[in-house]
């Protein structure tokens, strides 16, 4: 238990992906079964433990200590799980003679009935160290919130076994905690686990961005073109009555899209884009799609207002036949015939874009017929469906990004190699009537600049600091002073969380405009216009 607790403590404060991967692989390497598999399940969200409500936790602790002292403590710390883990009074004279393993903790929690749950939890807390108490409370209150995605955990497993992460993703849904056979395989002690489970995820094929000069080397006749839809890549798999909708990283997202899942009454594995609307009439914008994202439960009203559908562009399996080795041209033919048999309000075909040369396609790319199109995809007619991101068969050729000129407002210190540099920038644009303009923050970016530019901005931040709050500095920014940043971004969403009412997608610094006076940076209206278009 203590090693799991220590892992959580480290992960939550480690910002870099590589750092997290090292911590995870070290943990999986040094901890034995079944503890490591349970830890893995806790991180990927596959561990089921009956939830404990915060109010109950609070009640347990104030039975044991002065409520006033608890109040002072909670006010100071601000996080209930952390406060309870710190103040939990160990019973007088109680010296635990055994540190429970993660498996014992999970076992006792899973075996607890609803009525004796609180008692089981308090016994566990009595026996645990402070860090372990925090980990236990996190397990029972649901959601570790340690900044590690299931995908990253799978990457750590891949690193551990020196295998491709696609192999782990393909296996994943056929496995269950504590994943003993998976670890045995990764450590070379057993064969790769085989699974009889149905409707497993198939690792997806990804594309490369078109770079300067790429197209000149390619023959347009070798490639099909399609619109690049800015939805969510999904894989719909139905097999022997089992239906699953997967995200591109193999997470099962069926629960978030019950309307689409209900229409999945076929025997196939299809690849496509999840969008909202009715494909026969209208395709919703990204803002519409957002109404369906990151929701725990979807009300019937939302489902009706923003119905989910799938725009299909590839077939990996149809009626039990694995099609992945066939060329794209052949798969496309099968797909076209197959989609005709599906519910037309939930499935349609991603149309091909006819073109004869790259110039024609370039014109189409720059003026797509729908706002949710973010460019074109190029797919080699003769290529099989390959997991991962092979260079050559698939390209994405995105519409040029939007840019605005914004003024640097705040800078925050980075981590690791950047820990002594102010490398995360919040920038704003002008708003308000002429003569009393104010900067309103519209986004944050922490890449897009060279190391040399980083040094220049860092110096600028240090020389123009007007206020400091912890690792953040507020930078001089008014009509006459300020550093103008050209910010590139992919799109804009309405946001109620930001004062400006807009949120940028994928913002990055594209140029430093040392030459441009702050007063000439863009106004909020420029962004608002983009939102309405």
């Amino acid at each position, binding site marked *: 238990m203590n090693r799991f607790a*220590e892992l959580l403590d*480290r992960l*939550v*404060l*480690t*910002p870099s992906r590589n*750092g997290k991967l*090292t*911590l995870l692989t*070290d943990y999986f390497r040094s901890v034995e079964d079944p503890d490591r598999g349970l830890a893995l399940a806790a991180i990927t969200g596959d561990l089921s433990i009956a939830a404990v409500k915060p109010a109950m936790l609070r009640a347990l602790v104030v039975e044991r*200590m*002065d409520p*006033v*002292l*608890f109040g*002072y*403590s909670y006010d*100071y*710390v*601000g*996080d209930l799980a*952390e*406060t309870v883990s*710190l*103040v939990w009074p160990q019973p007088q004279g109680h010296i635990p003679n055994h540190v429970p393993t993660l498996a014992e903790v999970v076992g006792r929690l899973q075996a607890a009935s609803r009525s004796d749950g609180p008692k089981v939890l308090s016994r566990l807390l009595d026996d645990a160290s*402070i860090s372990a108490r925090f980990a236990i409370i996190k397990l029972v209150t649901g959601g570790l919130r340690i900044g590690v995605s299931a995908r990253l955990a799978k990457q750590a497993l891949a690193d551990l076994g020196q295998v491709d992460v696609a192999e782990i993703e393909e296996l994943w849904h056929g496995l269950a905690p504590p994943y003993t056979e998976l670890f045995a395989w990764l450590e070379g002690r057993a064969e790769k686990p085989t699974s009889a489970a149905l409707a497993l995820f198939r690792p997806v094929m990804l594309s490369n961005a078109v770079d300067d000069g790429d197209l000149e080397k390619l023959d347009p006749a070798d490639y099909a073109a399609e619109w690049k839809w800015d939805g969510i890549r999904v894989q719909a798999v139905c097999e022997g009555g089992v239906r699953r909708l997967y995200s591109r990283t193999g997470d099962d997202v069926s629960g978030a899209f019950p309307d689409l899942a209900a229409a999945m009454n076929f025997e196939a594995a299809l690849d496509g884009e999840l969008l909202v609307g009715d494909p026969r009439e209208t395709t919703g914008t990204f803002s519409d799609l957002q109404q369906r994202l990151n929701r725990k439960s979807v009300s019937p009203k939302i489902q009706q207002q923003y119905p989910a559908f799938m725009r299909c562009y590839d077939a990996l399996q149809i009626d039990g036949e694995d099609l992945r080795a066939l060329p794209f041209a052949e798969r496309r033919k099968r797909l076209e015939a197959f989609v005709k048999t599906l519910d037309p309000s939930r499935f349609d075909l991603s149309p091909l874009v006819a073109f004869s040369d790259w110039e024609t396609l370039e014109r189409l790319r720059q003026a797509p017929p729908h706002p949710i199109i973010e460019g074109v995809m190029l797919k080699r007619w003769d290529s099989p469906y390959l997991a991962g991101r092979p260079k050559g068969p698939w390209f994405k050729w995105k519409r040029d990004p939007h840019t605005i000129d914004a003024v640097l407002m705040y800078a925050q*210190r980075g*981590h*690791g*190699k950047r*820990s*002594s*540099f102010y490398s995360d920038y919040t920038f704003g644009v002008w708003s308000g009537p002429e003569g009393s303009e104010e900067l309103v923050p519209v986004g944050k970016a922490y890449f897009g600049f060279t190391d040399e530019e980083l040094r220049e901005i860092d110096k600028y931040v240090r020389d123009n600091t007007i206020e400091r709050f*912890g*690792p953040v500095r507020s930078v001089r920014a008014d009509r006459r002073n300020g550093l103008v940043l050209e910010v590139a971004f992919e799109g804009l969403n309405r946001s109620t969380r930001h004062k400006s009412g807009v949120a940028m997608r994928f913002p990055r610094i594209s140029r430093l405009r040392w030459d441009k006076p702050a007063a000439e940076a863009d106004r909020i209206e420029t962004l608002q216009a983009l939102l309405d278009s």
Partner: protein
Amino acid sequence: MFKAMRASDLLKPRPEGLYCPPGDFFIDPVRPVGRALITHGHSDHARSGHRSVLATQETLDIMGLRYGEDFAGTTQAAALGETLDINGVAVTFHPAGHVMGSAQICVEHGGMRIVASGDYKRQNDATCLPFEPIRCDVFITEATFGLPVFRHPPDHEEIARVLKSAAQFPERSHLIGAYALGKAQRVMRLLRDAGYDRPIYIHGALAKLSEYYQSQGIDLGKLEPGTVESRGKADFAGAIVVGPPSAFADRWARRFPDPISCFASGWMRIRQRAKQGGVELPLIISDHADWDELIITIRETGAEEIWVTHGREEALVRWCELEGIAARPLHLVGYEDEGD
């Protein structure tokens, strides 16, 4: 028992600091005064410019290193455990376990005994003498970590975490932020006790004080300046560097390869504090008493009355109330928690 003296007549807060009217001296005054008794060398307790200073020899030495030899008109070294008479008031210094030279000051007059503990801790620390509980009528305690959430783990466990991380990330450097007086030397000593025998790189701000500790018989092993400009980044791969916390936000830290920022402080108990400060590896190592130590100490002094100063007074006063011990906050101005 009858006391010829009321506690509040023996020691009382004044803007300059805690004042003893019958003895005509101040304890840890924050402004220049005639006669100052000083508990330890942290700059918020030990200021320069007093006419005369009474402190332990180590505290006097440390003040000399920090402020120059002319930091006071006259100085007098107090030997631990020896009682001095100041204008009829009996004054005795006892070890406080906070940093090298730190002392509690016991003041006795007319049958009333008050112990001003200054800053103190109860965890073992190889760089200073351990705290001695003194029976008294009134105990003046700090409350830097006076909340039940502050529970300092054993320091060797924290040091083990740095060494584990250094083994996990051999290509990166570990920068440990630690206050220049006391904490830094304690951290270095702990690294040595844990078997770390490579050179430890230190920031220039630590050099004089660390040298002083070494001269007093505290073996810190081989220390090398982390300030050599000619050294390449790769040379610092796997290095452990100790410096004042402020240095790590500075350009100074750029010479180190992909540093993992560590901070040795009792505040690191709170995750949000670590997060806000950009600390990746918090080390909960404190030179102040944690909640449990505060409570044990209050009990051990047998004091009937507790005066609580700098820190979170309200929680400790509340605890005393629940225990039936008279307690009140003593509002002294000017103390920060420099030592943590």
